[in-house]
């Protein structure tokens, strides 16, 4: 593996001295500048703008991981294009170590790049108002579409058990959706939610579709919620108990780490493909794979649309089949938690599991010898 480390160092040196890195750095700086322009300026502006700039930064990180991984196809393809491959094949180390070196270099660059940008966001974001403060978050598990009215439309209270008692005052963050309302009913009108947690109680205005923050006293173990007025029902979709503050730097480094690992899982695929294709083809195939993976989350929505014609149905079937082969990356949406002030939990690493088969497949492409390599059966 000493030779693989030499090739790793060679690729890193070439990337660090090349124009591509400078171009990528400028793009990241431009993305940060755009986030800065999106962030709220005047005191008193709500957190929506902060959420927007933070979400944008999370997208930038994700794009950096995917683009970095797809660009790794340039190592081996560049060797062929510049005539380095044949020269290196005349040296002692087997050619497979050259490929392993390219793979390692790609992994280091993608992970390092994501962590570096995440650290930049974690350090500068709070100072510049680009990201919201992050707090420890415990996810609640309300039954999906838990409502506040019974079958006859009579209001009924809902009691949510809290997973633990907080040592400090916290916040219960609830995501709600309207239920039983149709546009024919006209404007939804105002709706208020009454709450009681321990000795404290109060009422809150409920947005038409969005999030409600209920203050929690230290030590509270349950919250009783009830609708006050209104003509329609609310469904509790998701909920979190927000506790003690967390370091923004640590939270964003977590995001960078998870997205970086996603990129690392894509690197073998990109490097493996580049053995037989040009760098742009390998990069394009990797990006298309990620797009197909992203389509997994969208395809179920298509089922709600009117039945298409035969041609469209055939096209949709092809898309569904291709998406089924792509890894399921829909869980990556959890990486955006710090954008809305919630710290990531280590369990977020589970989103990487669907990438394991793809990474193994890519590793096979990198390690397996081709039938007629320059070094014969050693290639």
């Amino acid at each position: 593996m000493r030779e693989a480390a030499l090739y790793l160092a060679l690729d890193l040196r070439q990337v660090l001295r090349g124009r591509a890195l400078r171009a990528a750095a400028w793009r990241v700086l431009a993305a940060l500048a755009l986030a800065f322009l999106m962030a709220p300026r005047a005191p008193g502006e709500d957190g929506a703008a902060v959420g927007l700039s933070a979400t944008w930064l999370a997208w930038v990180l994700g794009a950096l991981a995917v683009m970095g991984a797809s660009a790794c196809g340039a190592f081996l393809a560049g060797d062929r294009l510049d005539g380095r491959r044949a020269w290196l094949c005349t040296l002692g180390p087997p050619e497979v170590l050259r490929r392993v070196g390219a793979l390692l270099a790609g992994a280091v660059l993608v992970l390092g790049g994501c962590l570096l940008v995440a650290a930049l966001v974690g350090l500068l974001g709070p100072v510049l108002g680009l990201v919201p403060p992050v707090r420890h978050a415990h996810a609640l598990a309300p039954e999906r579409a838990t409502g506040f009215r019974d079958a006859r439309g009579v209001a009924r209270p809902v009691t949510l058990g809290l997973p633990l008692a907080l040592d400090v005052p916290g916040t219960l963050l609830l995501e709600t959706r309207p239920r039983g309302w149709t546009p024919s009913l006209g404007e939804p009108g105002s709706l208020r939610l009454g709450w009681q947690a321990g000795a404290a109680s109060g009422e809150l205005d409920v947005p038409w579709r969005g999030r409600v923050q209920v203050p929690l006293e230290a030590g509270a173990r349950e919250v009783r919620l009830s609708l006050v007025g209104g003509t329609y029902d609310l469904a509790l979709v998701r909920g979190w108990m927000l506790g003690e503050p967390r370091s923004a730097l640590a939270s964003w480094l977590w995001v960078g780490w998870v997205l970086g690992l996603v990129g690392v899982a894509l690197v073998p695929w990109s490097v493996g493909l580049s053995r037989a294709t040009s760098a742009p083809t390998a990069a394009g195939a990797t990006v298309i794979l990620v797009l197909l993976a992203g389509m997994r989350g969208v395809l179920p929505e298509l089922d709600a649309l009117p039945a298409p014609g035969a041609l469209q149905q055939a096209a949709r079937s092809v898309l569904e089949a291709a998406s089924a082969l792509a890894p399921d990356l829909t869980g990556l949406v959890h990486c955006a938690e710090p954008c809305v002030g919630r710290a990531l939990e280590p369990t977020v690493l589970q989103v990487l599991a669907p990438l394991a088969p793809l990474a193994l497949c890519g590793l096979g492409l990198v390690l397996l010898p081709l039938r007629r390599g320059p070094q014969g059966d050693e290639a």
Partner: protein
Amino acid sequence: MSPAPSTPDRPAGEGRPAVVVAEALAMAYGRGASRVQALAGLSFTLQPGECLGLLGVNGSGKSTTLRLVLGLERPASGRVEVLGGRAGRREARAQTGFVPEEARRFGLLTGRETVDLFASLQGVRPRRERQRRVEEALALVGLPADARDRRVAGYSRGMARRLALAAAWVHRPRLLVLDEPTSGLDPLGTEEVLALLARHRREGGAALLSTHDRVTAEGACDRALVLQRGTCVREGAPSALLAGDARASLAALLRPAPGSDDARA
């Protein structure tokens, strides 16, 4: 027609086996109408301490022969052995140095880094010994001291060739394979290449080179094969092959014999 191996598998004067043994090598590129016969039954041997030159016009099979010896390709038929085993196996590669025709491949590295990379990949250790050999190789090929820490992308063609030679020789290989080693070099550079080849041979190393240059052929090679259409048409010492021809080029030697297919073409 191709002469039989002059000394197949014959031990060298020092009792060592031949460095390269090639027998009836055949190789073709393409298919159907575009098929080109690059080699057609070429045989030769290369002994330790010997320098063998491959002379021929473009497309005569010189580069293909070098690629087969390096193990970059396998012959369609025939066999090629390097240092007592199959060409291209790890042991052979580790004891071979290759100077490609175009050498500005690692443009973002400096000259010193390039040679150090090749020394490291060829297993020159420890670091102090590697550094010593890198400096020695760079000095021997005459790469200017102020150029050694500049990026290779800015090198002239001559400097790039000197660098490639240093990279090929830094691990003291038993076999040097050189593709047009003096192409693009000034007379001083050519002399330095010849001096390095002479030192390599004094140390028992063998060299296989292709060239169009009369100075290189006469100055470096003990023996030369004149290739035409993948076969050896003449073999001997370059001075003997060129006897009576006072011109500065190899044109007389490389010109197809009257009546041959190449001459008619």
